[in-house]
């Protein structure tokens, strides 16, 4: 798979190598700084950050209140901050309202709390249809919302970055904050999925 990718992308690969050499010669970039920054996004920043905030909001009413009032501060308080997290806003899913995040003009995304966006979030298919047919887009992900649930799409056209606070699933009463965080997916925090109940998986398993 990754070998395939390398083959297809030999053009850009060679180009980036040449660019890096050129800019290194000019003293603009150096290989160590590049490695360090790449490592940060590969290892330190990712959807796990957002998942921990969600899990805490589910278990700590005061934190949830702070999160919905000022998500930037609520993220900083847990150690998550950065240039793209400067204006973070959390939007809450309920039984009546479901939120969906998109950036139609480019691919703005809450890096600090979700890491780098997946390819589908940056795809033309998602960017074009999330605003005109959000229910159809959710169906592409296997999520079919009842008609009486209002869909609210947030197009990140400015410097605000959105994070969806998903609904806490049933059957999670006894779980710890850490166990809850394990359930929370990136897709749920963008709004193309709900957080699956561990019960459902369990019952399906017991039926099998």
């Amino acid at each position, binding site marked *: 798979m990754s070998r395939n990718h390398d083959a297809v992308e030999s053009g850009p690969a060679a180009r*980036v190598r040449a660019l890096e050499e050129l800019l290194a010669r000019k003293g603009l970039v150096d290989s160590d700084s590049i490695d360090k920054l790449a490592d940060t996004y590969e290892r330190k920043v990712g959807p796990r950050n957002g998942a921990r905030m969600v899990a805490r909001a589910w278990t700590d009413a005061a934190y949830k209140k702070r999160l919905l009032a000022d998500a930037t501060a609520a993220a900083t308080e847990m150690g998550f901050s950065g240039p793209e997290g400067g204006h973070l806003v959390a939007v809450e899913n309920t039984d009546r309202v479901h939120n969906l995040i998109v950036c139609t003009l480019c691919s703005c995304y809450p890096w600090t709390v979700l890491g780098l966006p997946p390819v589908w979030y940056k795809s033309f298919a998602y960017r074009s249809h999330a605003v005109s047919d959000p229910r159809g887009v959710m169906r592409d992900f296997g999520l079919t919302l009842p008609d009486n649930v209002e869909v609210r*799409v947030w197009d990140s056209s*400015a410097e*605000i970055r959105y994070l969806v606070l998903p609904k806490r699933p049933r059957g999670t009463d006894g779980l710890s904050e850490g166990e809850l965080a394990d359930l929370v997916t990136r897709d749920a925090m963008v709004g193309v999925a709900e957080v699956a109940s561990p019960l459902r998986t369990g019952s399906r398993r017991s039926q099998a």
Partner: protein
Amino acid sequence: MNGIHDIGGMDGFGPVIREENEPVFHADWERRIYPLSLLTLRQLGVSADEFRHSIERMPPARYLTSSYYERWIAAVETLLLEHGVVTREEFRAALGDEGAGAIAKPAEGPPATSGARSKAPRARFKRGDRVRARNLNPPGHTRLPRYARGKAGVVVRDWGVFVFPDTNAHQAGARPQHCYAVEFDARELWGKPTSAKERVSVDLWEDYLESAATTGPKKGGKR
């Protein structure tokens, strides 16, 4: 500019395909161009607005046939050329061509604005106000999507004061002003007779907006 990047509401791109267990980067060159770009932008003092506009100015066919990080390569090359850091000759020697900047649409910014505006200007609109996105089609950078232009909505949040992308991308002034979340009913945006409720919120700067009362009759009631 009404560029190819402004694709909200377009059809024909097919279903959204999700990749299972997707890695952060799909190839080593992606892993390198991403931080390389961030570091270069920082060195050159390029704003997010200017960076976005360098992507938007790619030839449309090339934009659509490039992957996300291939567009970053093009943007960095364009900015290096336009900021005078790398010459076409240097690109030719290193890349075999003159760099993406040689084929990018030149930026056409607005005239520079004076710094007369205060840094914390008064908000013209407030939560609950009915506003209409103006029908603006500037030749340069803008963050007012085409699908929202001319449409009426309601201010749901005042995000505070932000620099104005349409001038800031062109070094034509920061022009700080309030930016609002404006919520549009999907029926207003797409004319569709949806039974199910859908709303789209777009973050719009004050200069993009006018009071809806001045341009059309008030539809619907209070919120």
